[in-house]
Every structure is written in C-alpha cells, then in structure tokens.
C-alpha cells in the first residue's frame, strides 16, 4: 500500500480497526498519495484521509458500477492491460441474458429454489463457434464450463472455479456484442453519476473527484489500491461488492502491480491463516474443497471437481495437493490402494455454517459444543437465538482468557433478566478451560499480505492456562487411548492419524514440528523426511506429504523461514527476507501482470517483474508468479494442462483460462456480474431494477428472526423502523470484547456502549448528548448512550432524507468484564449472503427513541409491540411476508436449504 498513488478505502474503518496496518497508508500519504474514504460514517479513517465521501449503506455496487461505466464510456481503461490479461475478449454463450434484459435477474434463475443454473453464463467454445460474432444457436452442450446445473457457492480459494479448458472463443477487437467487454459495457450503462447521486447520496462533484483521483492515478506510471474489510463482506451480496472492485481494478490495470490490488483487511490476528488452514466447514487446508456426500463418492470424482487436468494453471495439479494432504494426515495408512484414505474424510450433507449450527442447536440436533476463540453470545447475529441455542446443548466447553458471556449466559445473560430462561431449568453442563494468550505460546500469524510471521513464547502461561495446540493434541491422545481396542471401522480415521508431536517439559507440543508438517516433506527413498522447498515438488504418488500445499517452502532447508527478522533497512523495498509469504515467498500475486504483453515493465516507476532476454527467464524484485522460463510470446501447449498450457501472457496463473475475470462464468451463485440490489429491510425501491433484493439471499425463517417490512410496509401508519444503523469497531476494543472489556486499560478508554447520531436526527427524535436512546428492531431492543456528532450526516437519497446511525458492537451484559452494556448483535437478523453465508450486519432498519429500554419481560413486549405496528407479528404476517413458522414451535428451517458451502469468517470478525 505504501507504493500506491491513490488509495480508496471503502467498506473498512482501517485506521481504527487496523491501526498498525494504517501506517502504510500514512506512509503512502507522506509520499504524496491521495487517500479517499467512502463510508456511511466519518470515522478516524476519514479524519486521516484526503476526503471522506458519506454513502448510503449498502449501495456500494451503484458507486463502483458507475466508476466502471465512467472508465469505459470515457475510454479511460488501460487498453493494453485489459486486452492482454483479462477475459474481456471472451465470447459468452448465446442464450445468456443480462440483468438489463430481465429487470434485475440473470438467465438461469429458478424462483422455486432461489438459485441460478449458470449454464448460460459460460464461455462459448472456440471449436463450436468462432469469434465472428454470429449470434444465437448455442446450446449448453457447447459451453466450456463443467459444473452446470448448479452455481456452486463453496469457496474456490485462490484457484477460482474450474473450466474444462482455457480456450474459449474470443474477439480480440472487443466488438462482438457477446464478448465480455460489450456485455460489461451494457450491464453498467445505467450506472451513472446521476444514479450515484440518487441511490448513494453522493454528489456529482464528489463522484467526479473520486473518479478523477482513480483514473489519474492508474495506468503504466501509476497505481491505485483498494482496501476493504467486513464493511463489504457483511452484506447480502457482499462478495459481489468485492468483485465489483475487482472488475474496476482489472479495467484500470491495477492488479499484480506494486501499489495496486485489493487489500482484504482481516479482522484480527491470523484470520488469514484460519482460512488458509481453515476453521471453515467447507474447506480443507490450501483451499481444497470439503468433499460432498453423493457428488464426491470416489477420489477421482472429488479430484476432478477441484480442477480439470486439462485446464490451465496450477489448479490442474489438484490431485497432487490432495494426496499430499491425505499422506500428511494418515501417513502409512494412506495408500494408492485405498485412494490415500480418502474415505476417512467426512462428507458434507449440507451447509454447516455458524447460523445453521445455531438452528440445529435450537432443534436439539446438537449434544456438545466446543467454543474456541469466539464469543457468539455477543459477536454473532441475533444474539438472543445464539444464547437460546446454547441452552439446548447437553454440554459446552469454552476455552478463553476470561469468563466471556458465552460462558456466563446461563447465569447472567439477558434472557435470565427477561425471564425467558431460568438458571435452574438449564440442563447444559458448562466447562471452562483457561487459554494461554499469544505471548504465552509460540506460533505463527498469517496476515492480510499472506505473510506468515513467527512469534516466540515470551512467558510461560500461568496456572492451568494451556495453548490450543496442547489442548487439541491432548484431546486427540485421550480419545485415541479410549478407542485403542476398537474394531469399529468408524474409529479408524482417528486411530490412524499421524499424532506424534514432540512435547516440552510442560507438555506443550513443539509448534515448529507442526510447521514442518504443514510445509511438507519427502516420504521414502533417500530423502525420506527432508522438508520440501516448493509446491512444484508435490507428487500424486504418495512420495510427499504436507499439511497445506500453499505453505510449502515455509520450512525449506529445515529452517523456520517465518521467523526471519532481517530489518527493512538491511534489504530492498520488497523485504523478501522478513518472514515468509505464501506461496513461494511471493509478495505480490499475479505479478506477471506488472510487465506488458512483451514482458517489459509498464514503466520504470512501477517496474517489478520482467522478462530478461539475456537469461531467457523472468526476473525482478519479487519471485515471479509465472513459469520461470516461459517466454512472453509462448502460445502455451493446448494439448497439455496445467502450467504447460499457460500462454506467455496468461498472467492469472490460478485461473482456469489464465485471465483476470471481468465476467465470472462460474464461481458466484448470484450472477456473473455485480448488480445492485437493495437490502431486504430497505424501505427504498431499487432504483435500477424491478428486482428489489438479492434473489439468492438466504434468510433463516423463524419467528425470532423476522425482518422489517421494507418497501412492503404500510405507508399509512408511517414507517415503524424508519432509520438505518450500521455496526463497526473501535480501536479501543476487540470484536466481541473478550480481549478488551476484561482489560482495564482498554475498557476505561471506551467504557460504555453508545450510538452516533447527527444533530438533525437527535433533534427529530429528541435525543440529548450523553443521554440514553433505545434502538428497536424486529429481533430485539437495546439501550445506548447518545453521542451527537456532525460526523454523522443525513444524506439526501431517493428523494428523501436518510438518517444513518453508527453503533459499535463490543459490549455485553454480565458482571465478569470491567465494563458492560447491551449487545448490539441482538438487534441483527440472520440474513446471509449465499456465496459466503456471512450475515448482513451493516444495513439494519430500526426505530429509535429517547430513554432507556424496559427491564424484565417488558423488553419482549416492546419488541412485539413494534412488530405488531409494522404488521409482521408472528400471528398475522405469514401470508404476506413469508417469514416462516407462525406457531410457537421451536423448530425452524432454512428458507433455502441446499448444500452450498459457507465461508462464515466467524462472528468474531464483525
């Protein structure tokens, strides 16, 4: 980021939530970069930017789409880059219909299931139809994509979704009406500066400033960088917000270049690491998918579904990555004969994300629950249902530093106060195990830049506090001991696990031995046990084993490369000898794109990786992200798959066609192009399409999870939930508060929950500075102190005044922490993005009134009263609003229940 000439921070409060990383934004500023913050609130990030653009929450795609339109319409796109490295020229199937044609839907939508069949989004096959622009006549049979019938939602990791092969029909002139560039142009033609003013509340002058800042700072000589965080992901459609920025950055030629890219700012330490080596139900290490029951019954089916051997790039080797992993886990028990113990892996039968798990608890479908590093009673949406869910468990283990609210809900949670739960009636057996903190154990953190940084143990943990590693290792040992004599085949996966880490005198396993296993090593032969140094050494014949293929090299030469600490002053600006970045210690992904089609740097100023004619190799300031000796003019071997198939300008080496995708033929469940929808509770009609909200949204239908009526609300009575609030984090606190509200030095800096309102809204509602306000949604009501500030500004959008409220979410009720307050996530419903299963926490309709909330049972009465007035009470609303069961039955089900994957980044990441 320090190398950027312009930084657009949108969907992130970077200075507050990532203050250490923000030093690089400040560094870029001091070098003359322009920093623009687009956010509903004026935050500490805005205070340290050149300009703040307030936006109506949830309209980011209108703004980004208008920038895309502006860039195309004014011919400001980086022509050579787009032609060389993106799929702009690829021809799409003739029966594809855009949202422009179908009033907000794409072709392939099934209203009965709320899902898309993406067959018509595929590339037209070069062999079946040339690039002559002839229209029509394309059946699904000629499409190049394989996974027809269902648009998959599970994560494709760094690899992207597969294609059968990477040679679609193309029109290099970009004139064919069915080529991606023309489709893109038509799709965003109505996303104008006027539309931005109308939908986002951003003036034309401000839009002009933003557009000019970006286009002036993009091109061969300059680069612009985007940064986002959960201000984008925590929307229904949030994955498409990010893709919209990706499309824009590809058009401006800002990917794979220094100072470019899109920084996905992670919520806390090693959240990146927890997706690389995942805590997610649908992923295995290194972004290999979890196999699904029925679809992946054989190893061959499974491997074929990850990446076709005939596709371009490194995902064609996915079989080797999978075998490598299975060998690491099951050692000698994984053989060619038993398909490397593939059947030891569990199979998915559906989505098992955070919120599905909550619903299963409520249905008495879960007996026990381990909770590590998370505080869902505070940090997850609809906190009341989270806590009620836990009361259905038979037992629950909490490992944390302090007695967090997820450990104390049974004696002092809000439901005890409201009388809904009585401690003596709760049968859940609770266990609390104290955890060692990061200074009390060694290990690694992987951050936003994919940099794996090792930290040493500073002190031994006090008392019974133990590391997660020690806990898991010992739990495994005890389980294996109990099952030692079992002959039940279902116990074999546990008994055959390689589970043999050396321990120190305190019983702590050596974390470097785990790192070595993650890195991978040779199996058998002369080099038996020698660490691998590159993922290209990984084999599919069982002669290598490794826990995460993308981390291969972190323990190269038997040295912990993540522990390297050579100061920046002693090396060049790439600082390749500080820690280690996956993959292959590469600091910028797809850096082949930092040189032009001929392999020459785009400019001296942005020189990074280039083709050296003398040595006939790629070279530069970073490890080239490309086959080292493949000439820029190489056409690729179409008969081969994998790296050999890549042409010399296929810079996006993990994509099945080697190109950056302006248009996504597969991989997204809600459309190949980002499209604006209003949020489900929005009272403003979609200004662009008849389709009001994202048609693939997953809403958990339950009487305790109802939504505000939005545009279907009765106007006669006025809106019952007329305002919108958005949640955010403060520097002083950490997520759900487990690591800050219990620490006096942090707690005293922000001691009480507050809501930020504009002077205009305070006047309208009758709020006083530092007084109390009650915020009410169909889920719950909370109280907060009032902070009246001009940092909150009412916006003029859709012909009305839009009032937005900001509420940080770090507090909870209880007596264990130094400070307490109401839990804001109690207000939020479980409406999930279908790509990621992440909840919308950023645009919530609410009512606001002065004073404190009622105590005891009167709280639920207040919530019910507002539901009644909005016409969404459980006894009356089913027919009109389709909000699920109307009886008091505890059972509930997913509105859309299909086996799509989830990528809940955990409630901790709000």
């Amino acid at each position, binding site marked *: 980021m320090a190398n950027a000439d312009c930084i657009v921070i949108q969907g992130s409060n970077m200075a507050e939530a990532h203050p250490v990383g923000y030093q690089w934004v400040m560094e870029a500023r001091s070098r003359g970069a322009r920093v623009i913050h687009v956010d509903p609130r004026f935050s500490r990030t805005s205070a340290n930017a050149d300009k703040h653009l307030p936006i109506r929450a949830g309209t980011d795609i209108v703004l980004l789409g208008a920038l895309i339109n502006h860039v195309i319409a004014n011919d400001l796109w980086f022509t050579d880059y787009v032609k060389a490295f993106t799929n702009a020229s690829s021809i799409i199937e003739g029966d594809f219909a855009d949202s422009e044609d179908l009033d907000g839907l794409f072709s392939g939508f099934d209203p009965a299931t709320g899902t898309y069949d993406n067959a018509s989004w595929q590339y037209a096959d070069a062999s079946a139809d040339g690039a002559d622009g002839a229209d029509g006549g394309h059946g699904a049979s000629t499409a190049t994509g394989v996974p027809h019938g269902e648009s998959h939602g599970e994560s494709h990791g760094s690899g992207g979704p597969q294609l059968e092969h990477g040679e679609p029909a193309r029109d290099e002139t970009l004139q064919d009406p069915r080529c991606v560039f023309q489709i893109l142009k038509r799709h965003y033609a109505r996303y104008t500066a006027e539309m931005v003013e109308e939908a986002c509340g951003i003036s034309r002058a401000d839009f002009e400033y933003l557009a000019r800042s970006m286009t002036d700072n993009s091109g061969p000589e300059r680069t612009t960088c985007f940064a986002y965080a959960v201000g984008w992901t925590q929307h229904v459609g949030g994955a498409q917000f990010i893709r919209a920025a990706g499309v824009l950055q590809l058009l401006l030629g800002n990917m794979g270049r220094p100072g470019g890219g899109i920084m996905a700012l992670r919520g806390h330490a090693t959240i990146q690491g927890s997706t690389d080596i995942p805590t997610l139900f649908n992923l295995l290490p290194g972004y290999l998918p979890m196999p699904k029951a029925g679809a992946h019954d054989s190893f061959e089916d499974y491997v074929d579904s990850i990446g076709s051997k005939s596709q371009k790039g490194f995902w064609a080797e996915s079989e080797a990555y999978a075998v490598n992993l299975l060998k690491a886990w099951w050692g000698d028990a994984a053989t060619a004969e038993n398909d490397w113990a593939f059947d030891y892996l569990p199979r998915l039968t559906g989505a098992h994300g955070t919120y599905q798990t909550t619903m299963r608890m409520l249905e008495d479908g879960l007996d026990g629950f381990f909770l590590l590093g998370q505080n869902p009673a505070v940090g997850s949406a609809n906190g009341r249902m989270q806590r009620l869910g836990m009361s259905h468990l038979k037992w629950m283990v909490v490992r944390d530093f302090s007695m967090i609210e997820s450990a104390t809900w049974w004696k002092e949670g809000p439901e005890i106060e409201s009388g809904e739960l009585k401690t003596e009636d709760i049968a859940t057996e609770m266990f609390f195990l104290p955890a060692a903190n990061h200074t009390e154990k060694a290990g690694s953190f992987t951050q936003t830049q994919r940099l794996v940084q090792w930290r040493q143990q500073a002190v031994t943990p006090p008392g019974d506090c133990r590391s997660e590693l020690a806990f898991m290792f010992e739990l495994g040992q005890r389980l294996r001991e109990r099952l030692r004599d079992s002959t039940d085949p279902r116990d074999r996966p546990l008994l055959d696990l390689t589970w043999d880490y050396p321990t120190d005198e305190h019983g702590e396993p050596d974390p470097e031995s785990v790192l070595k296993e993650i890195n991978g090593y040779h199996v058998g032969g002369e080099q038996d046990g020698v660490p691998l140094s590159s993922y290209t050494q990984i084999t599919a014949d069982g002669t290598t084993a490794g826990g995460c293929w993308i981390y291969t090299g972190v323990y190269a030469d038997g040295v912990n490369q993540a522990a390297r600490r050579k100061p920046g002053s002693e090396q060049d600006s790439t600082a390749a000898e500080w820690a280690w970045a996956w993959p292959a210690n590469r600091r910028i992904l797809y850096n082949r794109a930092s040189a032009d089609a001929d392999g020459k740097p785009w400019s001296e100023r942005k020189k990074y990786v280039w083709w050296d004619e003398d040595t006939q190799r790629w070279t530069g300031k970073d490890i080239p992200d490309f086959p080292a000796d493949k000439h820029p003019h190489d056409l690729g071997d179409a008969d081969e798959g994998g790296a050999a198939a890549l042409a010399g300008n296929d810079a996006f080496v993990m994509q099945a066609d080697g190109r950056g995708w302006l248009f996504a033929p597969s991989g997204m469940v809600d459309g190949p192009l980002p499209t604006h929808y209003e949020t489900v509770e929005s009272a403003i009609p979609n200004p662009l399409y008849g389709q009001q909200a994202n048609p693939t949204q997953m809403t958990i239908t339950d009487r305790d999870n109802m939504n505000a009526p939005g545009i279907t609300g009765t106007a006669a009575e006025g809106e019952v939930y007329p305002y919108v609030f958005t949640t955010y984090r403060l520097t002083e606190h950490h997520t759900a508060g487990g690591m800050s509200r219990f620490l006096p030095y942090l707690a*005293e800096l922000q001691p*009480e929950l507050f809501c930020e309102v504009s002077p205009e809204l305070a006047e309208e509602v009758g709020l006083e500075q530092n007084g109390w306000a009650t915020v009410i949604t169909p889920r719950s009501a909370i109280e907060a*102190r009032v902070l009246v500030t001009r940092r909150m500004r009412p916006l003029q959008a859709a012909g009305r005044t839009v009032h937005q409220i900001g509420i940080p979410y770090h507090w909870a009720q209880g007596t264990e922490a130094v400070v307490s307050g109401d839990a804001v996530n109690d207000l939020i419903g479980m409406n999930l993005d279908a790509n990621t299963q992440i909840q919308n926490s950023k645009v919530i309709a609410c009512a606001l009134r002065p004073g404190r909330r009622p105590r005891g049972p009167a709280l639920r009465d207040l919530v019910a009263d507002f539901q009644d007035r909005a016409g969404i009470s459980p006894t009356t609303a089913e027919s009109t609003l389709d909000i699920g069961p109307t009886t008091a039955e505890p059972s509930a089900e997913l509105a859309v229940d299909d086996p799509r994957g989830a990528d809940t980044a955990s409630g901790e990441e709000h």
Partner: protein
Amino acid sequence: MGSLIESAGRPGADSGWEHEHPRKGFFTDTSICIGCKACEVACKEWNQNPTDGDLELLGSSFDNTGELGANTWRHVAFVEQDSERIEEAKESGRRLVSLGMPTVGPRSSGPRPGAPSTPGGRPGDDLTGEDTTPPDTPEFRWLMSSDVCKHCTNAGCLDVCPTGALHRTEFGTVVVQQDVCNGCGTCVGGCPFGVIERRDDGTISPRSSRDEGEQKDPDHGTANKCTLCYDRLVVGETPACAQTCPTTSIKFGDREDMVDSAEERVQQLHSQGMTEARLYGANPHDGVGGIGSVFLLLDEPEVYGLPPDPQVPTKELPQMYRTAGVAALGMVAATALAFLGGRR
C-alpha cells in the same frame, strides 16, 4: 532552583550533571495522529499506572480520558470542527508566519521545489503578491493530539518542590523520585500545564490480573507524572509511547533534532497550503523557556486544552527576591535609623 538559570539547550548540564548527555524530548506531530490511544495504553502498561475515572462515557467525542493526571501520563484529545473554525485556524496559522514562523511559499499540490529547508522567517514578511490561497477547506475535520508532560526548560514543579523529590535528570527531563516525595502537593500548583497530580488512590489492575489478585499501588499519595520513561532511557530504550505509536506521530530523540524536524514539518505543511500548522513549545523565550516535548498543532493551543502562554510561577522570583531584598534592606535601614535616631 537550578532551572532558574537553565537554557533551553542543556538544562541537564546546567543542573550539575558532569557527563555530556544531549537533552531528550518528544516531537508529537498531531497532523499524522490517528487517535488510536496506543500511547495511553503503552504508557500505563509500562509504568503500571492505575486506571482512571469511573468508567462512564464523557460525551466528549471519542475522549474518555479527559485530561492528564497522576495516573494518565498520555492523553489523546479529540476535537471536531466545522469549516468556519478550520478557516479561522488557517488564518491564525498564516498570521503566525508573519510573526516569525517559517516562511511560506505559494500554494502548490506537493512539496515546493527549492523551498528553504531551514526556518528563515523574517518578522513582518510581506506575503502580498504571492498566491497563498489555501486548498479547499473541508466542511469538517476531526483533530487528534496526544498530550504529555512538557519537561519544561524552566520547570515550575521542580522549582517549588521543597523536598528535592523532583529532579532534573541527565537527559534534561524532570522526574519525581517517589521515595523522596512526601506528598505535599506544592508542585501541583506549580505546573502551568496542569500535568502533575497527587495519586490519591487506585489499584494497578482491578479484575484483570492473570496471576494474583489486585496489586495495591505503591505510589499512593505521592506526586506522579510522565518520567519520559527514565527507566527506559538509562538502558538506551525509546519511551513506551513513542515505541508503540503506529504512525510515528510521537517521535523521540535529541530535543534539538526534534525541534528541527518539527520546524521542517511545519514548513512542509505550509507549502502544501495547510497554513493552520504551527509549533508549540519550541520557543526558548516563552514563559517556561521552551519545553522538551514540542508539538505540531493544527489550531490554537486552547483548542487542544493547552495554555496559549504558559508561565512558570517562579519566573518573577528573582525580581520578587530583589524587590523583597530591597524592602528588607529598607526595613533594616529604617530600623537602624530608628535605633540610631532613638539614641540620638
């Protein structure tokens, strides 16, 4: 009374230290402060200071610390301003230039080529004919600034301390010796910045200790303030606040270098049209003889809660002694005269 004769450059040497230590100090550049309060936390962690206040919201923007005191040695102020106030700040900053602040060139979008690197402002610089139009004034801004003990050249607290508990260190800083302090509190009134305070009560880490129970504060009843991390300086370490600051808003080093880089920075900001930038505490002729912790501010000092014209209470002391001496001599003379006259 050593500080009465101290010069801004070497108050440590003037206090009788024989070895040569350059005077140490902070430069707090508020123009790059992001208000993270890491300095407040690092300070309390390192010095094991008790928590403050009653854990209630102050309703004062994001500031819930309020002010410096016995337990809080770094305090980040948050100031929300509209365009009218910003305009006034720009104007008052511009006026300071004509009072001898660094020269300012024409408006430009970047650092001005050939801008003088040393402050060379002449009193009464005529700016007519030069384009001093500032860049567009934003509608709103949010100032953040981390305040700390000033470690004055002429330190009021030190001057009035009757026990010698407050002393001038070899780094030119002013530090309380807790084992000498008798808690009389005279220093509290002696500080023109309201920095030093007696610690009346408190525990170090209530309800948070991972090992034992609560630790009683050992410095109960004595005067407390920033030591500029004396215990870190003697082993060559940087003070905790400067070490932790993620944006280098708090810089630490030789006081002379701090003042130089502060002046350079003001110059740079003025050349970019930010005429509201000004120095605080760098003037050796002010009422405290200059301070060890210089600041770059973006508005009048009062806006941040800093006194515009701090005066050490002992500043007039020599004159007072002289006057008192003359009076005493007069009294003696009069008495003598009376006796002489009586004898006559």
